[in-house]
């Protein structure tokens, strides 16, 4: 893993998202229990916790896929927790999923191009002719998609249907689709799960580069502690839906509750 990453290239800025007293239940299961935290511009914020702690549920609340019963989420001053899922994308939030959610029947390129759909405006008439403004627009966005493909080094699989790709590459394409949207806030749900050492190393490099080069704010869920400690500016620990601790990687590492609940118990 790249050692010694610090926030030297970018300035962690103001608070861009406020999560306030969010609670979410499924029947009797309290997936999130009064969770509050802030997200600052340009930071890499890690959410960790044992299985079933509510990490994915938290991301789902942020992009409007789940609607918490209590509490509120404000993003850039707008209320998020009651908004529709597709509006998250319009506000500049993109994400990847714990279980890959690619468009299986489409090629790598088309998957990445869908990430740019929102930015394409030419209407039906021009689309039908594939000519003039629509063609020009399509080519501009193709060029953008190619930048993402270059960045993630997936030129060779451009035209391959993603269903035929190995797992590690699928994860990379999914990141590509999220990046193609040029998000301000990127939510990554276990982007390195199931990868070998080299693949993880690549993924870490991409995440850091995105954060450095584009200043993208990143919320990252990850089980690999060495990665989390290395790349995140701040860490939030969830356990049974409750926020157990929050702080810099070092602070969290030294927190006795965290050691008891998480680090000490499951060390895979």
């Amino acid at each position, binding site marked *: 893993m790249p050692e010694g990453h610090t926030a030297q290239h970018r300035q962690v800025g103001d608070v861009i998202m406020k999560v306030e007293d969010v609670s979410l239940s499924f029947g009797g299961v309290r997936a999130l229990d009064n969770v509050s935290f802030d997200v600052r511009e340009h930071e890499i914020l890690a959410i960790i916790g044992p299985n079933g702690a509510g990490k994915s549920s938290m991301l789902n609340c942020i992009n409007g896929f789940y609607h918490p019963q209590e509490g509120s989420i404000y993003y850039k001053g707008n209320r998020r927790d009651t908004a529709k899922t597709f509006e998250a994308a319009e506000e500049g939030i993109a994400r990847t999923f714990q279980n890959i959610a*690619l468009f299986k029947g489409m090629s790598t390129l*088309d998957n990445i191009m869908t990430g740019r*759909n929102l930015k394409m405006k030419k209407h039906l008439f021009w*689309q*039908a*002719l*594939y000519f003039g403004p629509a063609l020009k627009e399509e*080519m501009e966005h*193709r060029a953008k998609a190619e930048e993402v493909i270059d960045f993630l080094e997936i030129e060779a699989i451009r035209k391959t249907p993603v269903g035929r790709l190995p797992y590690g590459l699928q994860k990379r394409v999914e990141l590509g689709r999220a990046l193609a949207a040029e998000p301000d806030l990127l939510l990554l749900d276990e982007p390195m799960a199931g990868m070998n050492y080299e693949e993880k190393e690549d993924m870490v490099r991409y995440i850091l580069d995105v954060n450095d080069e584009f200043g993208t704010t990143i919320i990252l869920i990850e089980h690999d502690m060495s990665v989390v400690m290395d790349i995140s500016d701040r860490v939030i620990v969830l356990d049974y839906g409750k926020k157990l601790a929050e702080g810099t990687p070092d602070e969290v590492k030294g927190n006795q509750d965290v050691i008891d609940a998480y680090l000490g118990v499951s060390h895979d």
Partner: protein
Amino acid sequence: MFYREAGQFKTSYQDDQAIFPILQDKVAVLALVAFAYVIPFFANEYWLQAILIQFLVFALAAIGLNLLMGYAGQVSLGTGAFMAVGGYACYKLTTNIEGMNVIVAILLSGGITAAVGILFGLPSLRIKGFYLAVATLAAQFFILWLFNKVGWFVNDNPSGTVTAPPREVFGVLVSGAQATPEARYWTCLTFLVIFAWIATNLVRGRIGRSWMAIRDMDIAAEIIGIRPLRTKLTAFAISSFYCGVAGALMVFCWLGSVETEAFDLFNVSFPVLFMIIIGGLGSIGGSILGAAFIVLMPIFLVNFPPMIGIDIATDFQKHIEEIIFGALIIFFLIVEPEGFARLWQILREKLRTWPFPY
């Protein structure tokens, strides 16, 4: 050997995204279209009237259904009803509005059908798959029932039939009983060529990608900003537009005079569904191939066995036909959901590297 990409360098994204990136494909398709245009000079009237025009009409409808089902993933059994809306709308327009150009009327009928399609597509936000199929089936029965019941739709004709009035384009009669089969054939062919081209454009651009995204993983699609309802309704609208135009052509250029029965489940909805399953879900070319197959197969079964000296009874032919269709549909659904189009693609991949695959 002659089918190669070698030497055809793509120097821009535009070349790379062309409909036929390989020159040989482009030439072959253009040659095929040109050939289709000269067919009337040597085909007899029976072939034009009974087979080729029917094929063109169904190919257009199959493209329409494929946009909805193959690309946007929304199941529909209402094809017959949507074609009926197109056919009846065109009849009402041409008979009630003095001097309306028939081509304009056909396009407007497509527009009216699109509106009806949007209405019946509304449930698709809530229901999927089998349940959506049942909802569209209800549309199928309801619309045909309505056309049968309400005399207004047939201008209160007591026989309940609609008959295409004779109409001209550039001084040539293209619809009604007096129009020559050649003129009707060329009219249908031109519609098919233009709308197949438009469909190809739609599916390789933003709209097509949003349809496929909804089809493949609707949650992920929504999370990258694709609005499910709007996207599905666009698919219903455009698909129905195609079916409506095909329905108008069916009345005006093929059958000339119809009752609602011509559009029922077994005459239209199922055959068109089979066309896209056999031809290939999610393929424009496959839709056309599938239509050709379903239209030609029965004719082949009638003519081929006697040619090689085998005599089979007519009702037995019907059985063979059903067995073949059934077997093919099961084969394509289970083994190769992408249909003939995929088999063709595999063949092409082999051909490209032949004779040295490695």
